[in-house]
């Protein structure tokens, strides 16, 4: 039986923090005794993702005792707290204050690192994964050809060009340790791709996959459902704390990062892979940048004015 005390159709505006509530468009959804999910909207929009990243960081700024961590995703923030230290009611007040402060700001500006990831597009290793699937599960086309075809591109070469010509926005990280969910920032580089059904049983480490409108990277050899278009020789997950990039934590990416894929040849792939295996690879990370929503929106508007042609070459 569902008692009246806990049944809910829509959040209440006057609420105590232990029950769902609404704070100026933000849904406050308790999830057990130590989590609350904050839902910022219903639609996948970059501004909501920026707000989520901003809210997740703001909540942590004051170092409130009992507030353990926050996890921003596309349109939500998961708050992890200790309800024996910080009551749901006080957490609600904290969220209300942070959210109202953010709504008062005219632009959304978040810190955003730019990280270069070398990729050998149309590589032999992910081709093996796909052929293995075709042999053992069901027929499937060479993935880059298929993705190109359903997106109206001339072929794998144009796909690789398009994919490496935009910065990719890391909207969230996770599922598995360090997996980035990325969207292209250049609207002309958007792709629409289905997912494998049934999924692949194995995918090489470092595979670059595309599914839905997203790009992701497989941090370790694992099953998967994204179409494969390339492979990076550099790890994005490592428990080897001797590597400078992984000294603080085992994962490379964080929400709000921008990734630039640099096309490399087979020979470069092998050279960088050897460097990475020796622990000598140094990531190119520009970590002083800020990302401004208003400036980004002005830029995308300009693109539409100038026509819809895809950008040339390897420029962002």
């Amino acid at each position, binding site marked *: 039986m*569902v008692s009246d005390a806990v049944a809910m159709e829509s959040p209440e505006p006057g609420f105590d923090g232990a029950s769902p509530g609404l704070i100026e468009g933000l849904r406050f959804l308790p*999830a057990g005794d130590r989590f609350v999910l904050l839902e910022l909207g219903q639609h996948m929009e970059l501004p909501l993702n920026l707000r989520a990243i901003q809210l997740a960081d703001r909540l942590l700024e004051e170092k409130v005792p009992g507030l353990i961590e926050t996890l921003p995703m596309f349109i939500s923030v998961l708050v992890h707290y200790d309800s024996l230290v910080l009551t*749901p009611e006080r957490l609600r007040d904290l969220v209300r204050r942070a959210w109202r402060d953010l709504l008062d700001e005219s632009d959304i500006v978040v810190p955003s690192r730019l990280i270069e990831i070398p990729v050998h597009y149309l590589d032999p290793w992910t081709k093996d994964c796909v052929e293995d699937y075709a042999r053992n599960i069901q027929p499937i086309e060479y993935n880059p050809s298929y993705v190109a075809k359903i997106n109206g591109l001339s072929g794998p070469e144009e796909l690789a060009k398009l994919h490496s010509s935009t910065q990719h926005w890391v909207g969230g990280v996770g599922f598995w340790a360090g997996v980035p969910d990325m969207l292209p920032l250049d609207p002309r580089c958007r792709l629409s791709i289905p997912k494998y059904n049934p999924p692949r049983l194995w995918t090489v480490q470092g595979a670059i996959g595309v599914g839905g409108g997203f790009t992701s990277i497989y941090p370790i050899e694992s099953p998967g459902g994204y179409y494969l278009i390339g492979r990076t020789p550099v790890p994005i997950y490592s428990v080897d*704390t001797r590597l400078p990039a992984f000294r603080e934590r*085992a994962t490379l990416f*964080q929400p709000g990062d921008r990734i630039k894929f640099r096309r490399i040849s087979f020979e470069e792939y092998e050279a960088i892979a050897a460097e990475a295996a020796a622990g000598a690879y140094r990531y190119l990370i520009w970590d002083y940048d800020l990302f401004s929503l208003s400036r980004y929106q002005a830029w995308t508007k300009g693109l539409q004015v100038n026509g819809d042609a895809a950008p040339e070459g390897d420029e962002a």
Partner: protein
Amino acid sequence: MSGSLEIVKPGLQTTVQDFPGRVGFWRFGIPPSGPMDALAFRLANLLVGNEDGAAAIEMQFVGPSIRFRAGAHIAITGGDCAPTLDEQPVAQWQTIEVRAGQILSCSVMGTGARAYLAVSGGLEKPLLMGSRATFPRGEMGGGALKAGDSFEFPDSSGDLRLVRVSQACIPDYPSEIPVAVTRGPHFDWLDDAGRETFLAVPWKVSGQSDRTGIRLVGPKLSFSRRAVEKAPENGPDPTNVINTGYPIGGVNFCGETLIVLPVDGPSQGGFITPFVVPSGALWKIGQARPGQTISFQLIPVNEAINLRRGLEALVSTASLEPAKEESPESSRSLNGAFGK
């Protein structure tokens, strides 16, 4: 001075864990890990006078054999793993003295799914991101223990009081498991009938369960309009949602499969979480065996907080009492040792 122990036979999946694990990295997809049954784990540490955060051993379904190279105080809690010390049965839920050279063997678990072994002083292991916990799937903090692995522990075998958990405070591991849930963020994605069915039926624990997810088998549930009439970017299935963070203990609906997400589970994904097992009840999920059933009772968040309070109260010296006189076996061997 420090002692050490060595794994002779590893058991099915034996790992070093600490509580509360590797906390603070959820936004990077790194799970906290730590014990699947935090209650039994913490009581084991309490029995040997350890701090709450001390590293100890989790065993799963089939326990390990372990040789002690030095004397120690140990305690075994959790599922009944029929432990023996040099082939003589020893009690669980109490402090035991082990002498150098003795072999502790834990067997197939008769009840529960996981048992814990704490050693006085705690196991020494390098910290990784602030914790000694093991995330076997990610090979983080090492993996499942293998024969020949060894761990040091500080020598603190001096004057420890021999205690046991009083009978009333020893948890039960029944085969029909009642588990409290609160509503989750997607509670309103089920319709009334869906919620009522979820709470009315016993859910069978699937064999495809591990530290990353406890899968449940049961009837098909029905969804509300919210789950069907939604923005297309959520995905086609009623259980699809725009990727969102997962609470630990969340009951995740993946199509027709229900998965309770424990301490090694995924941090986010595109499936709904209509219910959440609160922290005070999650230990029960860690003891659920394939084929057993779980029935859920809905409680409000404030009651879930009280449940956590109750668990914290249980992990205290108030739950302990002096152990009985030493068994004839151990006093005989002590006499033997001193008689020479």
